[in-house]
């Protein structure tokens, strides 16, 4: 599984944010956009094109899965599909976070940024 995880790295910021958004909850497309915007302080605003292109890759790679259950038509839009992070997706997000933490540590050691 470890070598499999490495194959996906490095992740683009958008993809990493999508995985992080799904790490908290199972979400539908628009909720992912909102969650990504919130967790990046509005810095990353995903469009529908970018989101679904990324989701397609994540689904093909097995990092994300679509939930079988459909929303209740009385409560939610039937066109919505919900997505969930798979164990592989979680491992990839963890590996990417580790990789970024390593980069951050190197930048701190070189005094490019200060300790927060």
């Amino acid at each position, binding site marked *: 599984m470890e070598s499999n995880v490495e194959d996906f790295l490095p992740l683009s910021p958008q993809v990493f944010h999508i995985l992080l958004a799904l790490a908290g909850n199972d979400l539908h*497309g628009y909720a992912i956009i909102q969650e990504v915007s919130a967790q990046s302080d509005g810095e990353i605003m995903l*469009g529908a094109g970018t989101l679904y292109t990324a989701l397609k890759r994540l689904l093909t790679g097995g990092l994300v899965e679509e939930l079988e259950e459909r929303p209740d038509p009385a409560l939610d839009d039937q*066109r919505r599909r919900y997505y969930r992070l798979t164990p592989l997706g979680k491992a990839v997000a963890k590996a990417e976070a580790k990789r970024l933490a390593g980069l951050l540590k190197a930048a701190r050691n070189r005094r490019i940024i200060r300790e927060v």
Partner: protein
Amino acid sequence: MKLLNCFTPLWKLLLLLYPQPFRERFGAEMMQVLTTAGSQQRQQRGMAGAIILCLTSCGELCWCGMRQRLEEMPMITWLIGLLAVACALFAGYVDFHNDEVQAAALALIVSGFVLALVRPKHALLWTPLIGLGIPLVHYLGRRLGYQPAYPVLTSSAATFLLPAFVALLGAVAGVVIRKIVRLS
């Protein structure tokens, strides 16, 4: 709200840029996200904000759709695309070195015919590509200091349209022959 509804057919049209399997899988969801994002933006930032978002979405759909289509393009299409570029440059080279148009016309017709015969589905894509060969080679040749056998106005649309039309004749013949072969 009515103004925002105008974007719905436009988005549906732009979704055609995506490959069919992608559209069938994600099209409805994407439409749902686009309409929800538009109406949410209207509530938060007013009509101007919503229109800006909708227009940005159009550009984004175009860009992502074309990228997706290129990504999913089969290897054979890429190879034939390269062959089309080679044919275009060859036709341009022939035209650059001959003051009679027959040789270049023959190169254009044969190129269009062969490419359409191999890949009839994309026959209309190859013809403008082949048509670009002549003005491109004339332009590059002159920039490099070579003199053509006869002068060609590279800035004129006819310099591109005429070869493209000639290549189209070859392509039509290629498609027809392919259909006849398939039927028999």
